[in-house]
């Protein structure tokens, strides 16, 4: 564990390379609380307040307003809470006092331990904590013999030591994985999500798909969404600072899974495009995503996101909103289901549409009307052609 947590320039957008410091909300030497905004950063489209990752003393600020800082680079250091408690002029109320936790004993890092590759392998296989082993090799190097000796010692002890499960590999949280983690954590912390679900009759969709087999369901859904957004522009909004910005341009983003992680490339001016153009563009974006060739243009400017897990037999799911957007649509699988038609039971293809929206921006009724519009567009699929 790090004694001195660093504040780093966060990645606020998958395409973000650098961020500009707008202003510091705290001064060097000030106490900060975990979660409290300490500075303002300008990202690709908007400004964000960055919160303190830990409670403590803002011991050092390493970038000044106006500086353009690469993402993940450290911009400040937060030190131990209350380093000099006696220096505090007046006693503060207990709730304002940072909780004083005992300093954790630093565990020596992998590199500080001098152990042979063979010893490291054996230690892991045998579940031996290598930091507890004394090396007998030249220069104090821990060798496989030392690990074997330690195994025998452990075996004779009466209580078996608990240990974590064997590790296959450790990989750094970086690249797309890190961008996804940061973006979605931000969403989970800040957005007020509400989920609504509707069933749509997919009879005409399935019929259309039989005629036009090269058109993907996702393309039909994107077209239905774009048409619906035109009528319900309030959903095509974003929260920027204390302003709700409603866009006239409709840019539907599509979540695509790649080996590197999740990306959401954008179909620009979606409502101005034909179904065939959308279908072609989706294929093109998917190919670029898999080849890791998406440009910043491909990845920015989205005003609404759609994500489809239908191909993986998912019935329905509530996705996380892609900030600063206002809503996201999750598509489930299309399947034949028994439905009551009058007093008879019939079998019809249907699908579940799940809309998650940010209640800070819109309310339940406009969101439901928007979803009804999508449902209606999908149930009259010929109109999407």
């Amino acid at each position, binding site marked *: 564990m790090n004694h001195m947590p660093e504040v780093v320039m966060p990645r606020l957008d998958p395409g973000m390379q650098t961020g500009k410091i707008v202003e510091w909300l705290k001064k060097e030497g000030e106490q900060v609380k975990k979660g409290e905004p300490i500075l303002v950063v300008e990202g690709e489209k908007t400004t964000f307040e960055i919160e303190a990752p830990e409670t403590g003393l803002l011991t050092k600020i390493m970038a000044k307003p106006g500086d353009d800082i690469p993402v993940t680079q450290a911009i400040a250091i937060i030190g131990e809470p209350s380093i000099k408690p006696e220096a505090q002029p007046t006693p503060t109320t207990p709730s304002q006092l940072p909780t004083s936790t005992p300093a954790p004993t630093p565990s020596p890092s992998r590199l500080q331990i001098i152990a*042979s*590759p*063979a*010893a*490291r*392998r054996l230690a892991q296989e045998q579940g031996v904590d290598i930091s507890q082993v004394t090396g*007998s*090799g*030249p220069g104090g*190097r821990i*060798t*496989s*013999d030392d690990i074997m000796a330690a195994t025998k010692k452990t075996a004779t002890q009466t209580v078996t030591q608990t240990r974590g499960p064997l590790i296959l590999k450790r990989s750094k949280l970086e690249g797309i994985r890190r961008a996804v983690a940061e973006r979605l954590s931000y969403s989970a912390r800040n957005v007020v999500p509400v989920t609504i679900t509707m069933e749509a009759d997919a009879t005409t969709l399935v019929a259309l798909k039989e005629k036009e087999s090269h058109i993907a369901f996702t393309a039909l859904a994107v077209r239905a969404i774009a048409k619906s957004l035109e009528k319900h522009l309030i959903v095509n909004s974003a929260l920027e600072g204390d302003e709700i910005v409603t866009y006239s341009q409709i840019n539907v983003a599509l979540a695509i899974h790649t080996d590197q992680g999740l990306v959401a490339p954008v179909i620009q001016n979606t409502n101005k495009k034909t179904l065939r153009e959308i279908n072609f563009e989706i294929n093109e974006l998917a190919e670029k995503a898999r080849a890791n060739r998406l440009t910043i243009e491909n990845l920015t400017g989205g005003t609404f996101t759609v994500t489809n897990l239908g191909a993986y037999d998912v019935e329905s799911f509530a996705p996380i909103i892609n900030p600063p957007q206002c809503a996201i649509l999750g598509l489930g699988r299309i399947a034949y289901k028994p439905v009551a038609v009058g007093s008879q039971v019939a079998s019809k293809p249907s699908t579940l549409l799940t809309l998650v929206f940010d209640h800070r921006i819109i309310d339940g009724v406009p969101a439901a009307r928007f979803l009804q519009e999508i449902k209606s567009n999908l149930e009259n699929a010929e109109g999407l052609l």
Partner: protein
Amino acid sequence: MRELTYADSLREALREEMLRDPNVILLGEEIGVFNGVYKATRGLLDEFGPDRVKDTPISEIVIAGAAVGMALAGLKPVAEIMYMDFLPICMDQLCTQAAKMRFMSGGQLKVPMVLRTQYSLGRQHGSQHSQFTPAWFLQVPGLKVVTAATPHDAKGLLKTAIRDNNPVLFLECGLLYRTKGPVPEEEYTIPFGKAEVKRKGDDVTIVGISRAVGEAITAATKLEEKGISAEVIDPRTLQPLDIETIVESVKRTSRLIIACDDIKTAGVGAEISATVQESAFDYLDAPIQRVACALTPIPFSPPLEQMYMPNADRIIETATNMIGK
């Protein structure tokens, strides 16, 4: 079992293969009338006549070039180059022509020739008549490289070399010609690409090349008195190299020393070390060590040359430092 010298063992291999195959022809400097500088061809001119045992002019280009031509024409030449130091003179014939022809002709041509040569480190022959440079030839695809460490191996490996349909560089050691060892009377050959474990051990693997095999065995015997159990492996052919046997051993002992009379820099030990760590990194308890020669011309002065040469004491010191005993 009867004992033969290394030179007599080579002679026996040549003679047996000449009797077995009339296409086997010997050529080289002083190999006929003079019976060979190292006596490996003693009596063969008398027995087989001048058509099959050819004294050549003092020209390594002629020896190697003629051998390539003979091989292409269907004979099985065994050419002798008196010192390994002279191989650069016939580099084109050996490396550019002989080694490549089979591949460049799509298998239509064969070059079944053996180039025998020796290195004389430790015999006060000076900088230009002592070098052991096997690594130079490990970068030549199409060329097999053989190192014989004992009379037994010398005979078995040379017979395999002569029967091979590809060019083989057969490396002998001047200091070993008069050493004796058991050699079976019955027919035998030794396959290429199969290392021999000369001595079993648990604490450290010592790969020895040519003369260094004997030094490694001496070192292992003395290390045993110190309570260190050393395994000694002779790859016997460097191309092809039996890396599996070495890796299997290192996985048990977790330590590796490569002893060779070549120059340490970019030498045989460097190649074996790099290859072993690719497969056995997680089994190593110590960095792989090389016992080889310094990057300097070989000194003529006998005490300096003795200091320059790898020997059992240096192997012992290296092993002890590695284990920390």
